[in-house]
Structures are given as structure tokens and as C-alpha cells.
């Protein structure tokens, strides 16, 4: 009977792997500020979204560590502490992300985690973050439900949620006199797609009660093939087609729908449409109404901070920054300001997560995309100004954005304590435009 010996082998292998791995993970000491960064590094969302976001983040962290960022971000690193970033791939689904998150917090003992593009991940991570008491900054994901359905102590989102994108597009369509008598939508079948469509269709109904919904399509996320959906949209003859597709899905959709003439036949609106522009270049269709989920890229405001960021990114990577790098930098700026605010209070020591969380609540900071205010979800959820535009070919044949309308943050975001959908249904009470 060799069972006992097998057990001994099992035990010793566990011990050996344990010693090696504990050795590895404790090798780097605990100076400075350790930051876990989670974004798509593989899969269909990597090339148009995750990688540019991380490129922006990497560049910004490098410049921060060298102290080369203009005021008010001119302190080195985070309040003088050198930032060490640990990038992690976001692909693989929410369950895998929960595990990666635990690894970052428990094994790498990071001081904070900045991450998450997918709304599915943003729904899964916060409860674990609070359970492990880990400071977490959601930098991009859109579903309004994160802080509407629950509240968390250590979780913050430094970007506005998706309600703003869809409310602003509905307003834009009406202001510019587009025909919205019938609408159709193609959105991914998960939190982001469903919430985006709900916010858009309800907003349109509210602003123009006579408009009818022709078609609601919900393909699976990352499905990449939209032949049947495009046929359905063409047949529905809706005046406006709304889509919150993003990343590789949006690229595929554009490339498959353009030759079939969808963009010529109907007015297409993309609630997050700019981040595939660097990749598609002149293949991007004309006459599309798009948002960038904030004043980013070609719709960025003309401020010193934005000029500095636009130029730094352009010089480093040779393409203009679209939504993703703006978003990640916005998250890093928020975290930096919260840390430095906490350090002012505690006399310059490295603040703990409770001190940072307290400082983060209700924080306001300038970003390349405008003023970010942590106003919703009791100071955990940001609002920010927004811009919507229409694509057009300029005289050199390059696709660019014109007809830009800017919206105040308080015009397209609900006030604190009211759910986005309820606010839309109530007819946007208290909107300050």
C-alpha cells in the first residue's frame, strides 16, 4: 500500500511550491506604493481598449515617478512615494477576475487596485473588495448599478456611469433636429449593454413620447459576428440605431455594417464610439453621432492639462489618445489626489486605506477631460462634463469630429440618491444645463 507515501509526496510538493512561491512574492520589498492595474491585455477588447488604456497609465505613472507632470500633479509619484504598478489581464470573465483580485490583495499585498473596463467585472469585484478591505478604484466600467444598488466603503469610481452617455445622446439628437420617430438598438447581453439601452430608450421616450422602439438586439459580448443583427436592423427601417458596443465588438460591427450601407440608411449613434478611431482610421464611417464617455480625444476641452496630456501621449505612441488612456489617467489622478489629501491630514506619513477612503469621498479634481466630482453614491461615484459630436471627413480625407455639443456634468447626471432610470423617468428634475 503506497497511499501513505503518496501523501508524503503530496505534502512535500505542496511545501516546496509554497516555499518557492512565497520566496518569489516576498522578494520585492514594500517601499513606495504598490498598485495593481487590471485591464484587458488579451482578447478582443485588448487592442482597441485595454492596451491603449494601459499605455496611457504606464506613461503617466512613469512621468509621475519622474515628477514631470504639470501642477497640481507635480509631486513625485503619489505624495512622494514611488509607484510600482502590477498589470493584470482582465480577460476571462468575472469569476476569474475575483480570483485575480484576491491574488493581488492577498499575495502581492498591493496598496490599491485600479481597474475594470467590463461592467460585469465591476458588478463582481466591489463586494469582494469590501470583504478584503482593499482600496479599489474602478476607472472605466459604465453600469450605473454599482453604487445605485449597494454601497461600499473602499470602492470608488472616478468616471461617470453610462446614464450620462445615453441621456446626452438623446438630447443631442433632439437639439440637432434628427428624426427620432423610431429607434432600434444593438447592445451586448450583459450589464453594460442592457443598462445603456434602457437609459437611451427611456430618455428618448421621455423627450419624444411618440417615438417607437423597432428592434432590441442583445448579442453576446465578444461574439464578433453581427451578420444577422445587421440584417434585422436594416429590415426594421428604424430612423436611429443606438449601440453601446465597444472594443473589438465595435470594430467588427463597423467593418461588417459599413459595406452593407447601414450607416448611409440610418442615423447610427455610438455611446462609446471614439476609442476605435485610432485603430480604424479612415475606415470609420461618416455621419455617425458618437460620445467618448466624457470629453476625451477629439472632443477634449482646450485646457493646459489636456494639451499636455494629448501631446505627451501623441509623442510617445504616435496616435492620438482616445477614451481609454484618458480614463486610466483620470483614475490615477483621483487616487493621487486622495492620497495626497490624506497625507496632508496625517502629517505626511503613508496613509492607510481608511485614511485614503475618507479623503476620496466627495473629492473634486481636474483631469484632461474636465472637472471630476465624486458626487454620487455618497461620494464614491464621479460625475464629469460630457461632449457629443458627429463624424465627418475633413478636406484631407481624414475622419474627424465636428458639431460638438458640450454638456455640464449636472445636466446629464442624476443628483445624489436618485437612480439614473428613475431620474430619466421623472423627466430629469433638477438638471442644470
Amino acid at each position, binding site marked *: 500500500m503506497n497511499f501513505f507515501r503518496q501523501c508524503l509526496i503530496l505534502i512535500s510538493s505542496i511545501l516546496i511550491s509554497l516555499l518557492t512561491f512565497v520566496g518569489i512574492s516576498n522578494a520585492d520589498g514594500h517601499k513606495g506604493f504598490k498598485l495593481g492595474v487590471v485591464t484587458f491585455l488579451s482578447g478582443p477588447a485588448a487592442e482597441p481598449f485595454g492596451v491603449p488604456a494601459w499605455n496611457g497609465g504606464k506613461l503617466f505613472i512613469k512621468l509621475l515617478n519622474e515628477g514631470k507632470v504639470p501642477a497640481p500633479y507635480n509631486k513625485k509619484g503619489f505624495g512622494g512615494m514611488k509607484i510600482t504598478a502590477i498589470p493584470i489581464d482582465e480577460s476571462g470573465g468575472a469569476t476569474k477576475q475575483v480570483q485575480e483580485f484576491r491574488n493581488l490583495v492577498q499575495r502581492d499585498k498591493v496598496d490599491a487596485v485600479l481597474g475594470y473596463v467590463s461592467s460585469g467585472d465591476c458588478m463582481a469585484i466591489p463586494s469582494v473588495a469590501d*470583504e478584503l478591505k482593499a482600496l479599489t478604484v474602478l476607472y472605466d466600467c459604465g453600469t450605473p448599478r454599482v453604487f445605485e444598488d449597494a454601497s461600499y466603503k473602499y470602492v470608488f469610481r472616478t468616471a461617470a456611469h453610462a446614464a450620462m452617455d445615453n441621456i446626452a445622446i438623446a438630447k443631442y439628437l433632439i437639439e440637432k433636429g434628427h428624426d427620432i420617430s423610431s429607434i432600434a438598438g444593438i447592445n451586448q*447581453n450583459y450589464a453594460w449593454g442592457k443598462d445603456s439601452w434602457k437609459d437611451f430608450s427611456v430618455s428618448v421616450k421621455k423627450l419624444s413620447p411618440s417615438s417607437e422602439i423597432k428592434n432590441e438586439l442583445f448579442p453576446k459580448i465578444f461574439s464578433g459576428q453581427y451578420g444577422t443583427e445587421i440584417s434585422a436592423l436594416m429590415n426594421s427601417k428604424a430612423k436611429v440605431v443606438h449601440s453601446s458596443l465597444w472594443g473589438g465588438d465595435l470594430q467588427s460591427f463597423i467593418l461588417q455594417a459599413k459595406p452593407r450601407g447601414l450607416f448611409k440608411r440610418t442615423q447610427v449613434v455610438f455611446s462609446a464610439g471614439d476609442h476605435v478611431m485610432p485603430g480604424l482610421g479612415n475606415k470609420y464611417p461618416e455621419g455617425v453621432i458618437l460620445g467618448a464617455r466624457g470629453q476625451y480625444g477629439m472632443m477634449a476641452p482646450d485646457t493646459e492639462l489636456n494639451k499636455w496630456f494629448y501631446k505627451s501621449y501623441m509623442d510617445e505612441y504616435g496616435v492620438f489618445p482616445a477614451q481609454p488612456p484618458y480614463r486610466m489617467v483620470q483614475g490615477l489622478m483621483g487616487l493621487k489626489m486622495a492620497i495626497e489629501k490624506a497625507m496632508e491630514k496625517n502629517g505626511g506619513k503613508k496613509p492607510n486605506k481608511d485614511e485614503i477612503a475618507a479623503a476620496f469621498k466627495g473629492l473634486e479634481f481636474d483631469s484632461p477631460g474636465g472637472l471630476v466630482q465624486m458626487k454620487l453614491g455618497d461620494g464614491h461615484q464621479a460625475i464629469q462634463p460630457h461632449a457629443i459630436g458627429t463624424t465627418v471627413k475633413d478636406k484631407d480625407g481624414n475622419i474627424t469630429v465636428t458639431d460638438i455639443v458640450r454638456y455640464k456634468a449636472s445636466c446629464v447626471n442624476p443628483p445624489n440618491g436618485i437612480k439614473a432610470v428613475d431620474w430619466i423617468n421623472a423627466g430629469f428634475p433638477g438638471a442644470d444645463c
Partner: protein
Amino acid sequence: MSEKLYNNLLFQSIFLMSFLILVGLLIPNWLVFVITKAIAYGLVGLGIITLMRGGLVSFGQGFVFGIGGYTAGLLGTQAGLTDAMLLLFVSFLFTGLVGLIIAPLLARYRDIFFAMLSLAFSMVLYGILIKIDAIGGSDGFVLPESTYFGIKPSSEYADYVLYVVAIIMTGFISILLRYYYDSTPGLIALAVRENELRVEYLGSSAFNVAVLNFTIAAGLGGMGGALNGIALGHIDPEFTYWTTSGEFVFISILAGYLSVPAVFLAALLLELVRSFSGRYFPDTWQLILGLFLILSIIFIPSGIGSFFKQFFDRLKKSK
């Protein structure tokens, strides 16, 4: 006498279990968590191995893994049942029952037909789960924190308590399985694997063996799914996706069907390789994982269990 005690399965297992429970106090929290996850995956792998002994491989264990996970999750969120041990046990029974219901259909098929049919079941479940918005659709949902006999451990110890529960429950299941493997029906499974026709001529039913093994595999898979869900605190339809099922097949191939502890070792290895390649090679972790799978199939084709066996056979000879 001492020699006998030494060789007693129960004694050995209890010794191993108490050792692992003690080790759990010394190792860092993340490793406790990784081992708990490995136990969950190992349980499903154990189910596949039970099937493999009868000559069947299921490509759709994600089906039972998902049912187990969703059973535990829904009982937790809808019925307010948060006792981890109870959830594990109920998931085990319920998934076993589901297994028993579909087993007669599956047990009529062999080889690739069995594998593909089981895969079909898991993908149908996947398709259904992503469409049900009431339970989160493709986002899945968050499980409430678990309790043990009505007590909710503080967050520092929650991982460890679950680890202990997992080790104890899995330990006893492993013992029972070892007895089952060495029992008459367990050995008939091996005979079915060798020559099904002859087994039938000798008066045993290969069909019954397949049904029994599938039911056991389903129960184990359900418990694994529940444990995985409870450990992570989140469940999504990815549990039933074919890539998840593929991982279970890989674990059982890596382990081989000769040894019970080898399954858990294989699951732990896979888990560690995956999590460290993700940490140190964030851009190319799939490549590292793939290389690991290829290398382990080339160098240990009949599994870690066989590697153990060879080693000890040689040791005996040299004595």
C-alpha cells in the same frame, strides 16, 4: 500492529487531513485560497476519473459544476441559506439527483459520443443561464458571505474556515471513493473499460456501472461547483462553459486514474501555474499555460498518479 495502523486508509487520511489543516495556519491567506479552489476543481476531476475508470470521458462536467454552483448561490441569495457545509451537502445531493436523471440517457453512449453529448448538455445550460436576467444573466451574481453553524467568521479567518471545511468534507469523500473503487462495482468499472462485452456475458451490466459512475461524478462536480462559488463569492455562467469543462478534463489527464490524492495535486499545480503566469506574464499568460499543458502531456502521459506508482514500484524492487 503498528504496521497495520500505518497501512490503514482511514488513519492515513485523517493524518493527512489534520496535517493539511495545521499547515493551513502557517501558510499565507492567498495560498489557503488557492488550495481551496484546487480542492473544488479536484472534486470535479475526481468525478471525471470515476468515469474514466469505466472508460468514459465527459467533456461537459461544467454542466454539473454550474448546477452545483448555482444551487449553492440561489439557496444563498433566494432562500437565505448561508451555512457553507449545508450548501455543499445540498449541492452534492441535488446535482447527484440531476445526474441520476440524465445518466440513463448518457449511459447508452460511449467514447466521443458520450463526450459530445455531455458537452451539449453543458452548453445548453450555458445558453439558458446567460438568458435569465433574474439571476444576473451573463454577469452572474454575488453570493452572501457564508456562515458555519450560524457563526460568521471574521474576514481574516473566513478563507481558513472554508479551507478546513473543504478539507474535511473532501477527505471523507475521498476515503469513501477509495472504498468504492476497490469494491465489486468499482472493479467492474475497470473491467468494463477493458472489455465491455465480456462483462455483460459474465452477468454484470455495463449500463448500470455507467449510470452509477455518472451519478457519482455529477454529485462530486456539483459539490466542487458549490465550493468554488462559495470560495470566490461570485458565480457566472462561465462555470458551465466548455473551456471550464476542458480544464477538468486536463486535470484528470494530468492526474491519471490511479490515485486519488494525485487529482488534487494536479488541480493545485494547474491553479498555481495559471495564477503565477497571469501575475508575471500578464500579456502572454495563455502561452505559458499552454506550454505547461503540452509539456505535462508529453512528459507524464499517463498522469501524476502513474508517476507515483512507477516510483514506488521501483522502490519496492530495490528493497
